[in-house]
């Protein structure tokens, strides 16, 4: 949410870092705040976006743990 205050909430595909954009987090909040009834397409998209977020972080975590296992030295 801290990012939303600074980066804005404009869903726009751009490579320009100076433009206002929307994060996945902000999108989920925006949809769930709008009081969407369960079962509609909007309601189901936030679960899809959440799943994408989850798998992104999982990939990074697995990668980090792989790097850690390879580089950590055992002293005892």
């Amino acid at each position: 949410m801290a990012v939303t205050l600074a980066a804005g909430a404009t869903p726009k595909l751009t490579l320009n870092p100076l433009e206002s954009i929307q994060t996945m987090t902000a999108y989920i909040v925006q949809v769930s705040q709008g009081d969407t009834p369960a079962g509609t397409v909007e309601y189901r998209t936030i679960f899809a976006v959440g799943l994408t977020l989850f798998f992104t972080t999982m990939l990074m975590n697995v990668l980090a743990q792989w790097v850690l296992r390879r580089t950590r030295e055992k002293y005892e």
Partner: protein
Amino acid sequence: MSLQTSNRHSRSRLLSHAFAGICLLSTLSCIAALILLLWQVFSHGIDWLTWDFIRNLPSRFPAKAGIRSALAGSLWLLGLTTVISVPIGIGAAIYLEEYANKNRWRTLVQTNIANLAGVPSIVYGILGLGLFVRFMALERSILAGALTLSLVVLPIIILASQEALRAVPPSIRSASFALGATKWQTVWHQVLPASIPGIMTGVILAIARALGEAAPLLAIGAVAYIPFAPSRLSDEFTALPIQIFNWSARPQEDFHSVAAAGIIVLLGVLICLNAIAVFVRYRASKRIRW
């Protein structure tokens, strides 16, 4: 010493100084950011931070707006989240560290917990929306909010508690077993008391994070305008970060100052929490004598 080697020496010394300088600069930039942040918040908000601000309910008019319902909501969430997540978190940590066999299954669980600790909190928010708000029909209640926040902080508490349990020397356990203590006696009377300071630190850090979370609460449908201080588990609620987010998103300049005053209140609660943690840790660590 030949000219060449002395040259090399002075160059490596220069490099070493430059590196130290860069590191110092990094540290200073962190401190500068903190000072800038505090200065900005206090210069904007301190005039708005009155007794009425703490006591009043939210309002359309900046001059009348207060933080009472958000403060009450945050304190409710804080208490409930602690009560729910701390016993489960410490229990899970004890099982994983003291009881579980080191096999593939434990590695799988461990990897999962480490992964969950890094998942963005909004993901827990939609889990809470689907599970607590809709499926268990808790609606937008304090209880649903506290359960969602408990999910957010559980992995952090488990990992920190595991770290604290691992820091207890194995010789303590062996000595306890050698004196005829059972597994339960060893864990309860030796390992757990020795690891309490570390566990407490982890718990406080986790709870402080829960206090600052807005995204998962917004996802389960907490709204900023609650014209009463919640008094039951099933009441609707708002929390400090949500209220601050809402105020700072408004166009009126005055509301930004009100938001700054809200941030001061949030910082105050955080500092109180940390003070309690330091005190408890000090008391607990005084009792350990090896």
